[in-house]
């Protein structure tokens, strides 16, 4: 029997997800052994054309990481959707926008201006700005167009499963691979479409070892402002910890290290907007019934939107800022 084909792709992402795949250590050999790796631009030299030449649904499984923010990202997403039986949004960028998605707080023009014209690291007077089409003697050079709004993979193509995390934890990847192998080898049924793999339905607090109690907050503080108590819930110590509004699966490693959760595993199944949910919870535990004081306390939250929507802006209810 021919080996099942595996494709791994990165769109707008940092590459961390690919490294996370390699982080499964010995298991990678098992993967190589079991799968026929047909497409992994990060690791090996493949051409888009090779994929285009494939039959529809020839690839058994595609792990797609990275957000969609250019014509190229979109084109390959569509291509892999066509060629794959199962398309997995792999990692936070693909599933909810992640850090690249923070671009939705601004627009393309501002970004281009900053990067190519006003950034302090540029030589003054620089006006070389990339163009999508540049005519040169040899012909026209084409650069894929950057979108004004970052999209998530599920927003642009049909996605079968989601593996959250920035990046997904190696042990979770290994577990997913084991499950896939199990399905393929033993003919187990597939989980229902849309299932979040490599994570649980509960939130980060489920895995957090810290003691939790009544939360009453008079002032929000940032991690560098205090030496944290290693035993007590960070939120009770006044930090904005997104743990309660974040899917569990990561093992609550950041929190164990004394750094509040930033929410990379995305929103749990039951809620619609991670940022709004967190904001609501946070507002609930503010210890004041005086409006002016509440405002004063809220002023102590640094960059509320960036905090609440760090990973989920493109997939949030409003998706991007309105000008």
């Amino acid at each position, binding site marked *: 029997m021919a080996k099942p084909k595996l494709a791994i792709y990165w769109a707008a992402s940092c590459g961390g997800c690919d490294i996370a795949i390699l982080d499964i250590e010995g298991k990678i050999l098992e993967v190589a052994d079991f799968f026929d790796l047909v497409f992994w631009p990060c690791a090996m030299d493949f051409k888009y054309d090779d994929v285009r030449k494939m039959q529809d649904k020839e690839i058994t499984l595609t792990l797609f990481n990275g957000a969609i923010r250019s014509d190229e990202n979109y084109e390959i997403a569509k291509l892999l959707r066509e060629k794959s039986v199962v398309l997995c949004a792999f990692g936070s960028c693909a599933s909810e926008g992640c850090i690249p998605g923070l671009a939705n707080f601004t627009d393309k023009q501002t970004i281009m201006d900053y990067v190519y014209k006003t950034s302090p690291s540029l030589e003054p007077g620089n006006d070389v700005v990339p163009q999508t089409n540049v005519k040169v003697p040899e012909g026209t050079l084409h650069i894929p167009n950057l979108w004004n709004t970052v999209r998530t993979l599920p927003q642009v193509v049909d996605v079968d499963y989601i593996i959250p995390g920035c990046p997904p934890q190696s042990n979770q990847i290994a577990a997913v691979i084991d499950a896939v192998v199990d399905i393929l080898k033993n003919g187990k049924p597939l989980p229902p479409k849309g299932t979040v793999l490599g994570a649980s339905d509960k939130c980060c607090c489920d895995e957090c070892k810290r003691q939790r109690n009544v939360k009453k907050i008079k002032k929000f503080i940032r991690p560098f402002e205090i030496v944290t108590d290693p035993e007590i819930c960070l939120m009770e110590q006044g930090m904005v910890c997104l743990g309660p509004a974040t899917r569990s699966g990561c093992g609550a490693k950041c929190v164990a290290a004394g750094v509040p959760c930033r929410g990379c595993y995305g929103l749990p199944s039951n809620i619609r*907007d991670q940022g709004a949910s967190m904001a609501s919870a946070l507002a609930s535990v503010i210890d004041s019934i005086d409006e002016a004081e509440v405002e004063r306390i809220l002023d102590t939250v640094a960059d509320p939107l960036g905090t609440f929507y760090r990973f989920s802006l493109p997939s949030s209810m*409003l998706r991007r800022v309105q000008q």
Partner: protein
Amino acid sequence: MSFEPRIVGFLCNWCSYTGADLAGTARMKYAPNVMTVRVMCTGRVDPGFVLDSFRAGADGVLVCGCHFGDCHYVEGNHKCMRRIAITKRILKGMGIQPERLRLEWVSASEGARFQEVVNSFTEEIRGLGPIRLKEWAFVPEQVEAAAAAHGE
């Protein structure tokens, strides 16, 4: 035709909803722009509801509850007050005027006040104009057309 704002109103069951009822039974005329969602308490109003209303096309959101101290659930309105405060910050960050979200205390006996609140809020939203969320939905055709244009 002039702009008719669409406003979602979250009214608490015990005070404001009854107040609205009173306004109605008292034959007080007020702007029809507010479409009400009854909740048991303003404490039930999740910021998500507000954001979702704007997503769904509302031009303004009005939340009405009992006066402080009168809450049927003791202090649900205090919690609401805090949540609305943070929601306004989110709206502001998202580029939506926070004035489009208003929190008002209307007791069961304040039909007149309800009338006044609805009317003034409607007028305010009318002044602010409609909002249309830009690039909210992903429209493949638009993207592809643009790509084609670039690809020349």
